[in-house]
């Protein structure tokens, strides 16, 4: 490979001027037809047809009708993903309701106010039985209660009045409270709330701590 014939690299046979002329001439004249001239174009037309066919199929299959968004089955969620998304949205809605209805006493961080309103973060009243927190929201609460080792509700000003919101809103806000600030209790559904509403239809006054303790003996530890 290293031994190559020395050939002059200079002197192109045609000058540039000639080259322009020759090619311009070639461009004007069609090449003379040969014996097989019919076949080659036919083969090309056939190949080109195949290509157009293939490309059309490709376009039709993969463009999703030129929509901006990908097709359903590509973005469809599995049942678990759907449930997780639903829970997330529920908690988001609950957070808004909490900010409007509850945070004025219990505070946005769920810690309550010392000597005034009991905390929800880490409170058994909020996180034990779904019925407990739901019924308190439905009918309110009065009198003394024990939360996290302290006694609350010493004066009537600290009583809780019923919160007039729909079953769905109660389900959202209780779910939020039960899963925020380190709480990790179960979700509460709209159906459960409406059941509890039916159960407590006989209760016309606010609940007292003793009543609820009797209803849910396992929910509140005795201290």
């Amino acid at each position, binding site marked *: 490979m290293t031994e190559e014939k020395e050939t002059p690299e200079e002197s192109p046979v045609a000058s540039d001027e000639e080259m322009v002329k020759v090619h311009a001439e070639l461009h004007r004249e069609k090449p003379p037809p040969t014996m097989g001239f019919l076949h080659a174009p036919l083969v090309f037309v056939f190949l080109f047809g195949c290509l157009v066919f293939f*490309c059309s199929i*490709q376009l039709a299959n993969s463009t999703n009708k030129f929509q901006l968004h990908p097709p359903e089955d590509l973005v469809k969620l599995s049942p678990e993903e759907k449930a997780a998304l639903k829970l997330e949205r529920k908690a988001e809605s609950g957070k808004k309701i909490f900010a409007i209805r509850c945070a004025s006493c219990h505070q946005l961080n769920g810690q309550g106010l010392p000597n005034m309103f009991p905390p929800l973060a880490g409170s058994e009243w909020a996180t034990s039985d779904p019925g407990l927190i739901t019924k308190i929201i439905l009918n309110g609460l009065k009198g003394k209660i024990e939360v996290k080792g302290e006694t609350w509700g010493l004066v009537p000003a600290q009583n809780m009045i019923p919160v007039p919101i729909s079953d769905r809103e109660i389900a959202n806000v209780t779910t939020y409270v039960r899963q925020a600030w380190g709480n990790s209790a179960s979700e509460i559904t709209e159906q459960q709330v409406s059941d509890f509403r039916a159960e407590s239809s006989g209760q016309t006054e606010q609940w007292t701590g003793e009543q609820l303790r009797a209803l849910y003996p396992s929910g509140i530890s005795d201290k």
Partner: protein
Amino acid sequence: MKDTAEQVIDRSAKTVVSFFVASAGLWLLAAALLAYVAAAKLTDPFFLSSCEFLTYGKVKVAQANAFVYGWGGNSIFAATLWILARLSQVEVRGRVMLLFSGVLWNLAISFGLLGILDGHMNAHEMLEMPTVVWPVLFISYAIIAFLALVIHRSRKHNDTIAPQWFILASLIWFPALFLIAWNGLEINPARGTLPSVLSLWFGQSLIWLWLTPMALGAAYYIIPTILGRAIDKYYLAIFGFWCIAALAPWSVVHHLEGGPVPMWIPAIGTVMSIAMIFPIAVASTNFHATAFKDIDKVWNNLPLRFVIFGTISYTLSSYIGVIFSLPDVAKLTQFSIINEFHFNQRVYGFFSMIIFGVVYHMLPHITGKEISKGAKSFHFWTSAFGVLILLLAYLIGGLTHGVLAQQPSLDWSSSVISSVQPYFKITKYAFIILGFSQLVFVINVWKVIFPNPFACCLASSSERKGKTA
């Protein structure tokens, strides 16, 4: 003895073309050095790790920019001016302006690269140089392009031929691409997915509509000139030209396959890539049907051998590109180092090889001095060897990378990275070979362009010796 018209043209082009070729050579070396640093960092993360301005992300980008704008830009100017002047049979005029714009272009790129290394990078593909640099680059390009168009406008014959179409197209398409991308990214920034699509489109189109037509035009000029015969099946060339013009800007978006863009964008890209088979086949037929009629001469004539290596590489790489644009294949290779294969195949295997041939053909005409055949031959074999090793490593490594990355059960660092790493080592050595070969090229070129400063001393001393003897 009266000079022929061609000698007059060559003399008029001498200063300007020499300037562009010489600076292109320097950029080539700079790019080779940066390429080595980037490749070495992939195998040894502690290599130069104490230099903040030489982190991988910066070096890699600086290398691509030095290569495309420094080496590509300068060599495109040189080849464009000379080939257009030769084909139009007109002298190169406005030489002072050309030199001035050339200096401006090179200064702007230098500042741009320093800006990249200093951390002032733009986030758009192949537009990474800092924003302030671009108006200067654009103005200097516009001046050079305008003077090249003046040469073409005052041509002796009204007819134009294939090399002129391709070279003029590349001359005009670059500013057009730049203005579209710059408008959509910087002047009136688009929102949503459009900027990322535009950025990719510019980076890829730059290679398809600026470097590629230039190299094709040069091949259309060099092959018939050296062989002394007309292009075979020349009537197809016009079809190939318009196919590239119409399809290439559409086909590049197939690189977005699987990306967060509307699905029709990569789908159209795939379809248009497949249709690119036609222009590729046309160019390949034109070049190779002509060249293989006189294969001995192709083999023995080094400039032509470089050019034919480039055209074969063009044909192969483009067909491989078509295969990799198919969605089923792209699924495997999309997020692997296969992209490096595409880039290097285009700019080293195709564009650079043809430009080497053009320079070796052009310089003896312009300067009247020969480059030694052994040096050229050495350059050819090291280049060809280096390019082959580099591309094979990227191709096989890319396929390995893509296939392994598809299996989520594999541990990433212990199995995927460790099986790709040997290929990175190979590319490091390939870049060393290529850098060495490019050094030989630059020495060849500079020796011819700049007369040996010691030549006069040697001559005078030998004269003195002769006198004393």
